[in-house]
């Protein structure tokens, strides 16, 4: 645990040197919700029907914004490996008395704390300003889902950060992945009325599994069986990505 906390301490020291960055990190999910969410909410007028229940787009989109927050935080953290590699410090880290797994866990743990703060802020603002009914009794589950989501995506994106040498190539690849994952998922819209091919692809998209679980917690839509299957799927995705990221980290040298 000491090793993981040493990485967290390092991340903390590095992050507090960029308070603007930190503020922007906290504000991005809110901006998504207030700009994109509000605009769609108004455009749709009567809202959506999800699983037979009428819901406002803001209430529907809250889970999507939270999922995107996890992905965005994971992306920023994994991009940090390019900076560390360019500084040479990444190689030095790997000679420190810790395992590769401890290094990755420490790296994401600080970001998970940031994600929890972002989530609380976003959920609170959506309740106060947008009138979204928030099931506060599930809040611990929501925060746990945010931590798991951030870690899962971080491990997944780290694989690319370790295997791709050029940051411009990494940006290109991640943009494509981001585009495909975001728009072929249940983040922005319910999947009930989309074409069958899109629904099929979205159903095997880990981003949909994560967003569906958050939506189950915030809106109560979905069946427990299907949600548990998606949760299990996401955890398997996380573990597989963790394993692959450790292997990719060794190959980056």
């Amino acid at each position, binding site marked *: 645990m*000491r*090793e993981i*906390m*040493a*990485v967290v*301490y*390092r991340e903390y*020291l*590095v992050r507090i*040197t*960029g308070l603007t960055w930190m503020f922007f990190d906290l504000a991005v999910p809110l901006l998504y919700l207030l700009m994109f969410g509000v605009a769609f909410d108004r455009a749709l007028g009567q809202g959506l029907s999800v699983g037979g229940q009428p819901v406002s787009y803001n209430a529907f989109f809250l889970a999507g914004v939270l999922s995107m927050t996890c992905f965005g935080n994971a992306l920023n953290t994994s991009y940090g490996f390019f900076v560390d590699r360019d*500084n*040479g*410090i990444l*190689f*030095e*880290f*790997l*000679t*420190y*008395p*810790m*395992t590769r797994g401890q290094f990755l866990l420490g790296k994401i743990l600080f970001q998970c704390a940031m994600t929890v703060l972002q989530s609380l802020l976003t959920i609170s603002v959506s309740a106060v300003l947008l009138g979204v009914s928030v099931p506060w009794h599930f809040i611990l589950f929501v925060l746990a889902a945010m931590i798991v989501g951030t870690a899962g995506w971080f491990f997944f994106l780290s694989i690319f950060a370790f295997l791709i040498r050029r940051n411009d190539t990494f940006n290109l690849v991640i943009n494509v992945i981001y585009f495909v994952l975001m728009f072929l998922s249940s983040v922005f819209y319910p999947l009930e009325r989309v074409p069958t091919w899109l629904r099929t692809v979205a159903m095997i998209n880990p981003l949909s599994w994560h967003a569906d679980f958050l939506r189950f917690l915030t809106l109560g839509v979905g069946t427990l069986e299907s949600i548990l299957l998606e949760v299990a799927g996401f955890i398997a995705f996380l573990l597989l990505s963790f394993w692959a990221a450790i292997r990719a980290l*060794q190959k980056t*040298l």
Partner: protein
Amino acid sequence: MDRSLAIEVNSLVKVFAKRDQRAIRAVDGLSIQVPKGSIFGLLGPNGAGKTTTIRVLTTLLTPSAGEARVMGYDVVQNPLAVRKQICVVVQENAIELHLSVQNNFRVFGRFHGLDANEIQRRTERISELFGLREYLNEKGMDLSGGLKRRVQVAKTFLIDKPVVFLDEATTGMDTFNKRATIQAIKEESRKGRTIVLTTHVLDEAEVLCDSIAIMNHGRLVAQGTVDSVKAYGLRMMSLSMLLADVSSSTLELVRSYQPSSIEVKNATLDITVKDDNTALAILAAVRQHTEVRHFEITTASLEDVFVQLLDKKASPS
């Protein structure tokens, strides 16, 4: 496993194979032993395989074949145990650019299990030793290249790991700091720490090292104490002859004595040979073959020996 050894490397091979490219044997059958508490220098030109060897020993790379042990721990079987025994100055300028020098020390100390008070106490000592006191609040990104290197080297003296790897540690340092670093390395060795350093500066190795190994093209070219390698060098001779005519038959004749090197400049033939007897034998043979207008036999310098050794792909140890 010999308990008196800090490092034991046997027939180590590291091959870098990339798709559609010829595989490169960066380390090719290297065997070295480093006794505990000694200063060991790994010498060789750029691309000799020194850094690759250090990277294998510090668990950054896994070997393709052979074995390597640090303080008795196998680098492949037990990399974490190896990392608990070492601290490393990597070849790259590794410093946290966004953090102050003080925070660089804090982070490094935390990673190696020191508490805040101990880090503070040791920071004062090493900042004095390396002349960093006035830079403690400066951010890494605001330091010159030499200062960054100094911070990086200073970090390794913050902790007490038994084996220290310094990969081209003094690169970019001015004379004053180089001297301070060399002094600090010597002091740490006296405390019983094993220091492994790579360099291509012979003088540095001569001042610091108890034993050295010279690498080229991934192979060991020579190994031993500094004195034994120097003694090997002292036996080597340079023979320079100004001839009436440098014909191909003369060159053939000289080559039959298997000199270490032959260089022809106009009518002058510069030859390096293993010992004075060979030099005299070549001179006598050439005099019977053609007119020798002038000749000179001198002892080869250590620099010459080094260059000669590196010109061979593999050889005596």
